[in-house]
């Protein structure tokens, strides 16, 4: 319940220090509970999502920090906290393999489903998107509240699974059967129930987002005047809407395997520990992989698209230039979203699914890299000739570009079946997708937090602490993930309890394990300035006006910071301009607000 109270506190301070006159036409006295806990205001729900998901990100990060100890010093007792992990997990502070597997599975699950997506879509999408399109709230406020609380319940189930006998799920975030089904403990069942909650929450949320964007745009805000961030949220919502249900179906099927004795994903004649497993009918483990990746590949774009949206906003704002090729970027992101549905089996080249299928999916995979490159190139070209302001949000946004570039380009060898044979299931894969998601997406999200913090609180975060946070994080995060490529190219498998110590071929690159672990812990240390900055700035940050970044989009130009509690806008805004009219020649100021009438 910690996060509920925190979620309550953050905006309280903001509220007290808000400025500007607040004429509440529809002001009702609300109790603490209806105002901050069971709120139907998209801004409060956005804050709830943000705080909850940031806590989950921190928690997921800590799980990884623990794993990194085991990888750097296999079999050595964990210092300081080792004793408090429990005899069943780490007797004498030495981590058991089962516990290591739990940490791995839950790190992935928490980071993806409870951390990044809720922050990118639930947090930023909820708070910023309605303001950007001039809407008084989301289209279905009650549904919005329900999405948050269903997500919260899913989080509780996932956390609780650590405490059931046998601990949490152990079969990776992908939960491949038969392993996930035949594992004797109940963690997997809890995982499936938790996932069903999280999927339901995403479905409710995505319906709400799409309806809001289509129906509640302000007058004059045509689709090609939408800020790119809104487009990113729009495409993301469609991915969630249409890709998540198959995983819900797969989750139900696996749950049946787990509790009702069916065998959808268990092949007949399965031998475990030299014994033939009793199987009722005989199913197909590949079926799970198909259904899982039918979601999980679009899910990758669910992770990255909102971050691209945030970065685009910040780059346009801080170069004081229109985005280069805005329309092309929009077409690219639509195409990207569409293609993301037909590349899923490139995760399955090694399953023996057949060469015809591999050829098909490696072709679509190569095609999907085109729109990603278009967007990235457009963002790079946007920098050209700009008088760039190097503030903290911009630094994170700038770092996003090469980091996502590395992540994307290292994906190409994985998308081609012949090179994937060598690289599949090695640390190379881990390095690849972490470059996309950690210094990629998470840097984008951090940029967003620094950028929109003044919107939410009316105060700016400290630039000095922000820059310490940025440079520290930038150096250490590369220290973690770059060596993974080296290890992976040597063939070191992922998910090894000892980091590869038992394999001869891993010996030449094993020393990187300690290096990466120190980098991970260093990264953790450099989050302290951020956490301090975040809370300190809520109350003590520099008060700034409604539009500190001199931005053009409606959330800055049409309302106060923070916006009005009810209905966001004093008067419903009307839009007369495109989203990025910066440095228009012949103007007295270098930006034209979208709602400026001339």
């Amino acid at each position: 319940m910690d996060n509920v109270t925190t979620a309550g506190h953050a905006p309280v301070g903001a509220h007290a220090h808000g400025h500007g006159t607040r004429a509440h036409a529809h002001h009702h006295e609300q109790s603490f509970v209806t105002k901050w806990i069971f709120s139907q205001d998209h801004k409060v729900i956005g804050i709830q999502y943000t705080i909850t998901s940031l806590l989950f990100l921190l928690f997921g990060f800590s799980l990884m920090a623990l794993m990194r100890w085991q990888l750097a010093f296999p079999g050595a007792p964990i210092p300081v906290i080792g004793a408090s992990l429990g005899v069943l997990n780490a007797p004498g502070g030495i981590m058991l393999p089962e516990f290591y597997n739990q940490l791995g599975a839950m790190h992935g699950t928490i980071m993806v489903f409870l951390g990044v997506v809720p922050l990118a879509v639930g947090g930023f999408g909820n708070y910023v998107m309605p303001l950007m399109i001039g809407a008084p709230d989301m289209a279905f406020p009650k549904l919005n509240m329900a999405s948050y609380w269903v997500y919260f319940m899913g989080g509780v189930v996932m956390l609780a699974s650590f405490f059931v006998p046998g601990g949490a799920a152990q079969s990776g975030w992908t939960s491949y059967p038969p392993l996930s089904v035949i594992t004797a403990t109940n963690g997997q069942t809890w995982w499936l129930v938790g996932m069903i909650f999280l999927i339901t929450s995403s479905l409710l949320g995505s319906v709400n987002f799409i309806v809001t964007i289509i129906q509640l745009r302000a007058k004059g805000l045509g689709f090609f005047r939408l800020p790119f961030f809104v487009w990113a949220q729009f495409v993301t919502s469609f991915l969630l809407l249409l890709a998540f249900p198959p995983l819900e179906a797969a989750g139900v099927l696996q749950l049946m395997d787990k509790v009702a004795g069916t065998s959808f994903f268990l092949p007949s004649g399965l031998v475990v520990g030299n014994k033939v497993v009793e199987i009722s009918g005989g199913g197909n483990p590949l079926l799970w992989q198909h259904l899982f990746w039918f979601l999980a590949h679009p899910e990758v774009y669910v992770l990255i698209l909102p971050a691209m949206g945030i970065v685009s906003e910040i780059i346009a704002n801080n170069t004081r230039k229109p985005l280069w090729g805005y329309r092309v970027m929009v077409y690219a992101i639509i195409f990207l979203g569409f293609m993301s549905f037909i590349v899923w089996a490139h995760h399955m080249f090694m399953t023996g699914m057949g060469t015809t299928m591999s050829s098909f999916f490696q072709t679509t995979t190569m095609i999907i890299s085109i729109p990603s490159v278009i967007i990235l190139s457009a963002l790079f070209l946007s920098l050209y000739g700009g008088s760039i302001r190097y503030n903290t949000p911009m630094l994170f946004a700038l770092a996003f570009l090469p980091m996502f570039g590395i992540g994307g380009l290292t994906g190409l060898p994985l998308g081609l079946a012949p090179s994937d044979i060598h690289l599949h299931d090695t640390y190379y894969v881990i390095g690849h997708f972490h470059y996309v998601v950690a210094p990629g997406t998470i840097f984008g999200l951090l940029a967003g937090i620094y950028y929109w913090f003044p919107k939410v609180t009316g105060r700016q975060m400290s630039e000095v602490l922000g820059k310490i946070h940025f440079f520290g994080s930038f150096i250490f995060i590369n220290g973690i993930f770059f060596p993974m490529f080296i290890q992976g190219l040597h063939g070191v498998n992922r998910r090894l309890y000892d980091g590869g110590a038992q394999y001869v071929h891993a010996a030449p690159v094993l020393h990187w394990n300690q290096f990466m672990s120190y980098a991970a812990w260093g990264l953790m240390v450099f989050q302290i300035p951020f956490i301090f900055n975040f809370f300190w700035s809520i109350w003590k940050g520099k008060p700034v006006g409604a539009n500190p970044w001199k931005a053009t989009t409606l959330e800055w130009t049409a309302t106060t910071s923070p916006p009005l509690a009810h209905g966001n806008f004093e008067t419903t805004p009307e839009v007369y301009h495109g989203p990025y009219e910066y440095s228009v020649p012949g103007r007295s100021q270098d930006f034209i607000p979208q709602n400026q009438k001339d």
Partner: protein
Amino acid sequence: MEIPYTVEVRPDTGLSNGKLGVWLFLASEVMLFAALFSSYILLRVGSTEWPRGAEELSVPMAFFNTVVLITSSVTMVMAWASLKMNDFGKFRTYLGATILLSFVFLVVKYFEYSHHLHAGEGPWHNTYYAIYFTITGLHGLHILGGIVVNGYLLGPGARMWKTEKERFTNRIEIAGLYWHFVDLVWIFLFPVLYLL
């Protein structure tokens, strides 16, 4: 604070929020059942033997249930049409009939389930029964959901008719869209599971 287009339609899209919302929701439901159908096909094609539905399950019961569900769809659309014709009394009768028919469907389903379970033909019996119980069970949950929504609209939700007629009519239409979809799924389930 008023959210626009909850009752009236937005001129450029021609839709109200609720209508668009429920169609999007149904789109996601299509994908849910698509995944289950796809699994069914994959499991069936990959199996060495697969029983004929008619030899395992009771076709008469399922035929009866199909008739019940199609009828309930008609009463549902008639409930909406009655509101359109400003006849609240008829609306109550039709919506009540819809709910009653939903219960009939579930009762028949209960007899089917308990017969198979007593005969030892639970989901653990073979993959055919596994997929049968999973898909019809999920469909049954959708029926239950429909009963809850329709029950609310017949009971406490109906008060809205006195204050906001148009909005209430829209709600019935939206509930109807969902209910017809549940019927539509069954139209496919019946031949696939029982007859083929």
